[in-house]
């Protein structure tokens, strides 16, 4: 059946002002978040929380579902590293049905976007879930953190206080312009479309306060339940966010150009994977990769034993494990339209392949050809599942928009 999807625009700066409520944060960001959550749990605004906790006696962070407020003393709302992608964690929690307890979930913006994509893929049930996203300065590379946790945590803290060095961040974080509330440019977001229910902002506030932005009905319930009123926009926050967005967009443009030249063409592209051992960590870490058994682990691509030698003879040699590049290209074709550039894949790669950057670049380019921005609008259908008649004019019989060429004409120019 035909459906004319609404194309999302790429420009997602918050041109429409968002109303926020203020919450004091003089004692520190984490403390303020803990206070908010404790109050909310005590007053039963919600019954449980899922968020990262620091595992005692270690430098590790673990997603935890809790209703015991005492556990919040270990809370680490925005860890310096991304461990398990939060969208994936939320999917583990709700893929078999809605949670019985009303639960608030604290996610980084890219984790929120991944969660929205998973919601569209029916791997997350958002009933009884209140999604809370937080302004995010980025995350430091997992391997850097593991070798020197104290130093890396300090560098991250500097970035939280807005006087840190972005070189400490992961490459995909440095080019991320969706670190705050995403919204389409014109007309505002339709009701029910917002990715998060509440957004917590702290940029531009010099550590004095948190700003709580209710974005949906559930969000309003939460903010009001805390006894707060979201009545005014906050200029200092809007300016800080706009400045950072502009800077990051410049980085993204430079990256797109530079990285593209490094991977353009079959040889440069495949050379990127010279050291790949086909361990599939990238696929396992990726929140969008939800298949019970990956197609590239299944019988579908298993080569019958008797054909190994035959295949080897074709080129004089056969590399093991088989079909490394096919795995990456195939995974790309399956998920890149929903890629939220979170970089979990790159953190997980034991061969230090810049797979997050590669997929982020391809994602950016393919998503724009579908006029699709993953994860920012719950109501925007997935491009491969939505039929639009006015699409890909350059390869289709002249379509309604009149800009297309007949296939015979296309071939003439080829």
């Amino acid at each position, binding site marked *: 059946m035909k459906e004319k999807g609404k194309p999302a625009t790429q420009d997602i700066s918050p041109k429409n002002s968002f109303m926020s409520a203020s919450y004091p944060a003089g004692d520190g960001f984490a403390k303020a978040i803990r206070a908010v959550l404790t109050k909310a749990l005590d007053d039963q605004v919600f019954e449980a929380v899922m968020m990262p906790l620091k595992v005692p006696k270690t430098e590790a962070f673990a997603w935890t579902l809790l209703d015991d407020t005492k556990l919040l003393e270990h809370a680490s709302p925005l860890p310096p590293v991304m461990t398990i992608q939060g969208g994936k964690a939320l999917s583990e*929690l709700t893929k078999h049905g809605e949670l019985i307890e009303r639960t608030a979930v604290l996610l980084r913006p890219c984790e929120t976007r991944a969660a929205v994509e998973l919601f569209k893929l029916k791997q997350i049930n958002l009933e009884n879930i209140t999604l809370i996203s937080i302004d995010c300065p980025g995350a430091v590379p997992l391997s850097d953190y593991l070798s020197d946790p104290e130093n890396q945590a300090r560098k991250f803290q500097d970035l939280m206080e807005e006087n840190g060095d972005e070189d400490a961040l992961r490459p995909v974080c440095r080019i991320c312009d969706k670190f705050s509330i995403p919204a389409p440019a014109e007309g505002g977001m339709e009701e029910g479309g917002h990715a998060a229910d509440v957004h917590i902002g702290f940029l531009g506030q010099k550590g004095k306060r948190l700003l709580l932005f209710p974005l949906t009905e559930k969000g309003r319930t939460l903010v009001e339940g805390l006894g707060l009123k979201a009545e005014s926009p906050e200029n200092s926050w809007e300016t800080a966010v706009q400045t950072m967005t502009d800077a990051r967009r410049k980085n993204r443009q430079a990256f797109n150009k530079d990285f593209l030249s490094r991977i353009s063409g079959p040889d440069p592209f495949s050379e990127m994977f010279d050291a790949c051992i086909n361990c599939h960590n990238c696929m396992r870490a990726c929140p969008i990769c939800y298949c*019970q058994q990956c197609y590239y682990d299944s019988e579908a691509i298993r080569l019958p034993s008797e054909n190994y030698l035959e295949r080897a003879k074709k080129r004089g040699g056969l590399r093991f494990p088989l079909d490394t590049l096919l795995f990456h290209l195939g995974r790309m074709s399956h998920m890149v339209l929903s890629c939220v550039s979170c970089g979990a894949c790159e953190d*997980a790669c034991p061969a230090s392949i810049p797979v997050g950057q590669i997929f982020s670049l391809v994602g950016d380019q393919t998503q724009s050809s579908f006029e699709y921005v993953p994860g920012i609008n719950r109501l925007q259908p997935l491009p491969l599942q939505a039929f639009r008649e006015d699409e890909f004019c350059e390869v289709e019989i002249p379509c309604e928009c009149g800009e297309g060429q007949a296939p015979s004409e296309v071939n003439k120019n080829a």
Partner: protein
Amino acid sequence: MPSVLNIKKGVEEGLRLFLESLLREKKVAGVFTLRKTNDEGAAAYTLITDPEHMQQAVPLYPLMPMNAGKALSSHTLGSASEAPLAAIVRPCEMRAFTELIKREQGHRDNLLLISVSCAGVFPLSSLSNGTLSQELPDYWESAQNAEIPAFLRPTCAACEHFLPFQADITVGVLGQKELNKECNLFLNTTKAEEMAEGAPGSITSGELETPEIQAVRKERMAERRKLFEPFTAQDYGLSGLVQTFAPCLSCHGCSTICPICYCTLCDFDSKTHEYQPTSYSIELDQKGGMRIPPGTLFFHTGRMVHMAVSCVNCGMCSDVCPVNIPVATIFSKVGDALAEEFEYVAGRDAEEELPLGTYKADEYSDIGE
């Protein structure tokens, strides 16, 4: 004393010559070995059929990008290789292949298995952090002197089964003199001797078990004890496991890369272990909080139960772990304990039956009559 094919070339070059001759004379249809994939030190196992490509082969390169036992298993899964092949694999990779054959996951026929008296490999991370290219000359020197260099995979430093079991040919590396001038291929089977007929070099005799080998074995065993020391049941125990596996991302890279983990869909990835909403409610009720995803440690202990008896201590799991958990250390410690318990060494003998599938009347008599 076994017969030895001696080639007056550096050990890797001599081996390459031998393999090339096998290909050119069509004694084998293909050679399975490591091959350089770029100029920055990366390498991958390759089944080479064109003798010209043997120029890029680096059979003794001290890197293990995958456990070759897994590769051999996937090649011979349905049936034995239809043509003779030669494969150069390390002792632990051979042992893994043997363990897989016992589980109907491979066939040995038609394979000429060439292994080495193994000086170990570098961890995977040494490729990206430059250690491998830096320390490569040192590696060969330590190999010759049968020493244990600091940059080896921890499991290699602690490995006592560095002489292969049941290989057709053993390439003398560890403790062998003048590796840059002499290549000694120890011919252990009649098949090996047949293959060596007419090969470049001359037949002599030699001894793998040099005094240096015996000395390094003792050192390796000491390293092993040192490696396992922190992980005692009394002092380390469950809380120790919880702490060690705290950073685990549940990526299951360890099981994906493990040669012994051959299941097409791991039980721990299947729906069997997925939680229903009510289960979360119950846990919240009982404990007030729980880790998401659940079963982080359960996966590891469960995997241990499934495969530790065949653990060959190759160390791929630690290498692939994104959060540097010493998986291999813990698993091979348990593997060792099981080996002692069942008097079984994984991959030692293809005819030896798997302990968990073998009933012995006089076993564990102290537990139940």
